[in-house]
Structure formats: structure tokens, C-alpha cells
């Protein structure tokens, strides 16, 4: 039953995609991470967060920042639209560690800095239970809208 009925498309503006990639580039050589807010299926905001492990091969959202960001989602009436992190030297595909530690029923967006330009892919990692070490990987579609014009509102 898990995963059914949830959108498997991550749709975001070019500006937001660039913001996410920029955060990943800035954090190199360590992995970068954060969350994506969504409203009606569209990503509305990138929350850049601290990688609490400060590692080139691991990431963990800083729990206090995560709590604050989730609170902000709720106050704004947004959904959690995805979790993102970077792979600095490997492809944009979930590592065994990503699968083992996966905990959210939302797309995991991976930004690979191994290619230029960086590639962005997204996956859901489906588990029967949060405590399972194994999960099924399903790719989600990432749509970056190139549209010009007004762009996202300030703030």
C-alpha cells in the first residue's frame, strides 16, 4: 500500500533547481542536504540545511533545523515535497546507505556533481517499515520548468 496515490513527479522552476545545485556546489567536498517544500505538486521553496555529519560520503539533516523547517512547512500550508542531497563523485542514484537510512515517504532528490552540468534525479525508497534496512527504489520524474517571466515571488 505504501507509495500509492502520491505524486511521483518533482516539478520545480529553473530558479529553485539552480538554488539547490548551488547549495550542493558550495558545500563541496562534503555532501549537501536540505528539504523541498511543495504546494499542489509544485516545489515552492528550497530549504538549504546543514549536513550534521560534515562528510563527503554521508549526510544527516541537522535535527533542530529539520524540526524548524517542518514547522515552517506547516505554518505555510506546504507539504514536504522532497528531501535532497548531493553525491559529490558518484552518479545520482541511491547508495546502499541511502536505502538503509531512508525514512520519508517522499522523493529523495539526488544532485550528482560528478557530471558537468550536475545531474538531478529523484527516487522514492519504499519500505514496509521505517526500521527496515531494505527498500524498493522507484525512480520519480524530475521536471525543471525553464519558463521565463516573473519567476518565483520574493521571500
Amino acid at each position, binding site marked *: 500500500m*505504501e507509495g500509492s496515490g502520491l505524486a511521483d513527479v518533482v516539478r520545480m522552476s529553473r530558479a529553485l533547481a539552480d538554488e539547490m545545485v548551488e547549495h550542493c556546489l558550495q558545500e563541496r567536498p562534503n555532501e549537501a542536504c536540505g528539504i523541498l517544500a511543495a504546494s499542489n505538486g509544485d516545489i515552492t521553496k528550497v530549504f538549504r540545511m546543514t549536513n550534521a555529519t560534515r562528510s563527503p560520503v*554521508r*549526510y544527516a539533516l541537522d535535527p533542530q533545523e529539520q*524540526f524548524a523547517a517542518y514547522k515552517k512547512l506547516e505554518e505555510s500550508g506546504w507539504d514536504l515535497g522532497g528531501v535532497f*542531497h548531493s553525491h559529490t563523485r558518484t552518479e545520482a542514484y541511491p547508495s546502499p546507505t541511502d536505502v538503509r537510512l531512508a525514512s*520519508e515517504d517522499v522523493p529523495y532528490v539526488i544532485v550528482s556533481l560528478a557530471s558537468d552540468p550536475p545531474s538531478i534525479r529523484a527516487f522514492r525508497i519504499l519500505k514496509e517499515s*521505517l526500521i527496515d534496512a531494505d527498500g524498493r527504489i522507484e525512480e520519480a520524474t524530475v521536471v525543471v520548468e525553464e519558463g521565463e517571466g516573473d519567476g518565483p515571488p520574493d521571500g
Partner: protein
Amino acid sequence: MSVEVRIPTVFRRFTNQEAVASLEPGTIADLVAQLERRYPGIGDQLLAEDRQLHRFINVYLNDEDIRYLNKLETQVSEGDTVSLLPSVAGG
């Protein structure tokens, strides 16, 4: 008045998709026991075999991580909000 426990999406399969549970005041351990009685199966998602919180669960009393309070013995009073959050990590 009661205690409000906020349930993350990953656990809502145990709660018939309810996002909030209203429980009686007590310690965090008491609240986990109340959750398990109401939503069988959820307790194993929260507590490891040593009856401590799984390390991939963060629990907040209002705005504070209970790991920096009294952990499972942290007292929760009427009107408080407890939030359960999965820790988000990978490699």
C-alpha cells in the same frame, strides 16, 4: 485538555492516516505506550529492543529535543505538543 502528539507521514499507516493523536499527560514512555494501545505496531517503530528510542526517531517536546531533556522520562503536561520526526540521513 490533553497532550497533542504529531505523527509524521511515515507512521500514518498505523494511525489510519491521522496526523495528530490526543493523549493523556505522562512521560514520553507513557505516551508511547498509549500510542501502541491505540495504534498497534507503532511502538516497535519508536522503541528499539533495549526499549530506548530508535536512533532514527527524534522526539520534540514543544520546541526541545527530548534527548537534551530527560529522554523517555521527560514529563509531558496538559497543553504540550510532542512531535515525532524521522531523522533524515543517507550517504
